[in-house]
């Protein structure tokens, strides 16, 4: 067990209005410099759509992220270390600026200085890279709001993967916005592909940074990152990336994109995780299991053993407290409504998304149904394959079950809150059917809908109080052993959503039994009946 703290973000996609304020403020703060004209550390793309850079999700072409080799070991998709070194003189998988877009400005000067003429002077577009006249043919959000229109449908790499029937049925157009920043991954393939070792993950807060003094411009990281969130500064010859606004979060204030988000849909908080478990989780054989595997890496900050271990690992007291009230932990683990972006890249991303329910509500409303009635909504989530399969390609490697579960929880919240607001009788059964109590549903609603600044951004400052370290030393380790049962967030989740029979769901006398339907294959505790006379039902007996 090697406990580490990570600053993570969750975005609630239902609330994104696609205003690009986050992108613009981020650009003003970080990339309005020569060499970075084409770079957007934060970009907002319309899905379905090509994304930025164009079709970056097509990893057969761009070779980003990790894959399992023949022996089941985790390797970079772009090849072994040796192969990467051989490719160092010319990276075969590097997007060029055309794959992003040719950045441009306009010749405004001409508007003022043109001599008197019969025609109105124009401001011609000029390339920001060469300064010459240019034709504007693409941009960072060129396909904004086009959604699944006919021109785009063939170009979205995700749509290429959903089933053919779904594509044929693509009459009910739907779209939503996907704001993206660097994922500050637990298993960053950008860092792993840097030949100079210039990209590092900060051990205190997990922020992934490029050491500008050690980067030598080998540009392997650009290929390594499957989200294409490393940008090569063509003036300085160094790689640059989203910094999670570390100078801001170090002093306890949110990132620029979060601070300025018009939809107030971003949440920042601390997660505790077991760094020793990351490699095994990222090597999970089946792609559908990667999302639960990543949940299994997070640690439950309410567990006293985790707290003790955190103290022993030198995590400052205010960080441990922040982890316990982390909005990010609540959305990811307690309510399980947030999902990772492309877990199949195996980088263990740490910016998660609450999938949008609105496309379904809208579709229902358009067809004359009550889009917020529980029955209708639940039915729609089951029957509307297009959005669900598409969302599954984004968030769960194509596994529709977790997406449906998250959407059902959001739907239950909508129905419940509508009843509350209209003064109608609420139906606790609706909440119960998604594994939440009405109180939890209301708490989730508060967090998702009306949470104030301090609840959305729980960021402990980086100033370390030395006094705390001293008492942590005296506490020592009270752990039963590495990875002891019950410590991971996954266990909390499993209990909550009936993955085991240990929560009273099992028949009498067999409470410690594992429910084989949901057995995660991690251990055999509870698989076998207890010996007569003992009460060793398994490691998870209450």
């Amino acid at each position: 067990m090697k406990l580490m703290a990570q600053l993570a973000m969750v975005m609630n996609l239902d609330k994104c209005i696609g205003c690009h304020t986050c992108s613009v403020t981020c650009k003003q703060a970080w990339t309005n410099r020569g060499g970075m004209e084409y770079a957007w550390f934060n970009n907002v793309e319309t899905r379905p759509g090509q994304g930025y850079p164009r079709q970056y999700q097509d990893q057969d072409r761009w070779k980003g992220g990790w894959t399992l080799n023949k022996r089941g070991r985790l390797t970079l998709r772009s090849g072994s270390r040796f192969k990467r070194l051989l490719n160092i003189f010319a990276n075969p998988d590097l997007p060029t600026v055309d794959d992003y877009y040719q950045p441009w400005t306009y010749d405004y000067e001409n508007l003022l200085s043109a001599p008197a003429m019969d025609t109105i002077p124009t401001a011609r577009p000029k390339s920001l890279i060469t300064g010459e006249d240019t034709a504007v043919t693409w941009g960072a959000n060129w396909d904004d709001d086009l959604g699944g229109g006919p021109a785009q449908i063939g170009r979205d790499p995700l749509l290429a993967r959903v089933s053919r029937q779904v594509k044929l049925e693509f009459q009910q157009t739907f779209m939503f916005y996907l704001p993206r920043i660097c994922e500050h991954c637990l298993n960053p393939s950008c860092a792993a592909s840097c030949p100079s070792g210039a990209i590092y993950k900060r051990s205190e807060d997990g922020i992934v940074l490029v050491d500008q003094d050690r980067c030598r411009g080998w540009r392997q990281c650009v290929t390594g990152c499957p989200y294409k969130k490393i940008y090569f500064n063509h003036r300085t010859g160094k790689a640059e990336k989203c910094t999670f606004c570390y100078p801001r979060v170090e002093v306890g204030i949110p990132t620029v994109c979060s601070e300025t988000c018009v939809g107030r849909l971003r949440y920042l908080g601390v997660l505790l995780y077991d760094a020793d478990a990351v490699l095994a989780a990222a090597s999970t054989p089946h792609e559908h299991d990667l999302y639960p595997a990543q949940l299994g890496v997070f640690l439950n900050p309410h567990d006293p053993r985790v707290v003790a271990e955190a103290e022993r690992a030198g995590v400052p007291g205010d960080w441990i407290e922040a982890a316990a009230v982390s909005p990010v932990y609540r959305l990811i683990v307690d309510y399980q409504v947030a999902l990772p972006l492309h877990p199949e890249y195996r980088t263990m991303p740490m910016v998660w998304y609450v999938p949008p329910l609105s496309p379904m509500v809208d579709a229902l409303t358009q067809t004359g149904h009550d889009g917020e009635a529980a029955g209708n909504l639940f039915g729609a989530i089951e029957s509307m394959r297009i959005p669900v399969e598409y969302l599954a390609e984004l968030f769960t490697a194509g596994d529709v079950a977790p997406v449906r579960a998250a959407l059902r929880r959001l739907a239950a919240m909508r129905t419940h809150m509508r009843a509350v607001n209209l003064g109608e009788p609420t139906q606790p059964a609706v909440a119960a059917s998604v594994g939440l109590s009405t109180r939890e549903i209301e708490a989730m609603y508060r967090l998702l809908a009306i949470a104030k600044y301090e609840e959305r951004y729980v960021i402990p400052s980086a100033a370390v109080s030395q006094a705390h370290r001293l008492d942590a030393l005296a506490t020592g380790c009270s752990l039963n052993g590495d990875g002891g049962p019950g410590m991971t967030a996954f266990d909390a989740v499993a209990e909550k959503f009936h993955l085991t029979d240990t929560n009273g769901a099992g028949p009498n006398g067999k409470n410690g039994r594992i429910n084989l339907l949901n057995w995660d294959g991690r251990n055999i505790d509870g698989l076998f009946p207890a010996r007569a006379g003992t009460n060793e039902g398994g490691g998870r007996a209450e």
Partner: protein
Amino acid sequence: MTTWLWLIVPYVAFTSFVVGHIWRYRHDQFGWTTRSSQLYESRLLRLGSPLFHFGLLAVLGGHVLGIAVPASWTDAVGISESGYHLISVSMGTLSGLVCVAGLVILLYRRITVTAVRQATTRVDKLMYVLLVAAIGTGMLNTVGVNLLQGDYNYRATVSPWFRGLFTLSPEPGLMAKAPTSFQVHALVVLALLALWPYTRLVHVFSAPLGYLTRPYVVYRSRGDHLAARPYARAWEPPPPARPAPIVRMGRGPR
């Protein structure tokens, strides 16, 4: 004249090479980069760059063999003078041609692709002139002199002269006897060495061989400098400034 050209000039070049690298390494980590232009154009680069670099590595290996290794050593392992020449001329020509092919593609690209041309600094241009001259005269020596005019045994003059510079028993007279084309090649290469640390050629010394053995993910602590750092809320006066890092941004706005 002999002393000047073949004793003082080489030592000046070596000094510039060594001191320049140390100075640059200590003071300009931020500028130490390949400054790759692959972002602008990838197709030609993918063709030319590997040809050029691998060719050059082979050429370098040949030079080590021909200059650093005395003729007596190759004799000792039973390679005759004519045998050595056969190997060196054939391999040298081959790797030289690969290198030249790459260089031609890269130069074509640098001149014709606007973005790449504009990203070429003055020192880049000087470096390219010297590089072309060095490779050109080198090819002339290998192909022209050795092949067409018959063998010239540079291992009796050029090589001992070069080694003498390092063993601190210089014999400038040896080099004075060499054919003019060899002399020009030596001078061009010395100029290139002298210029080396001030160009992006420094990236040669960052060849990332450590990558083969280090762990995939690097963790680093952010350090304790934050412990005492005061933070002013927006409505408070700012804390005393820390020395600001020097920010350099390539060539600045046009």
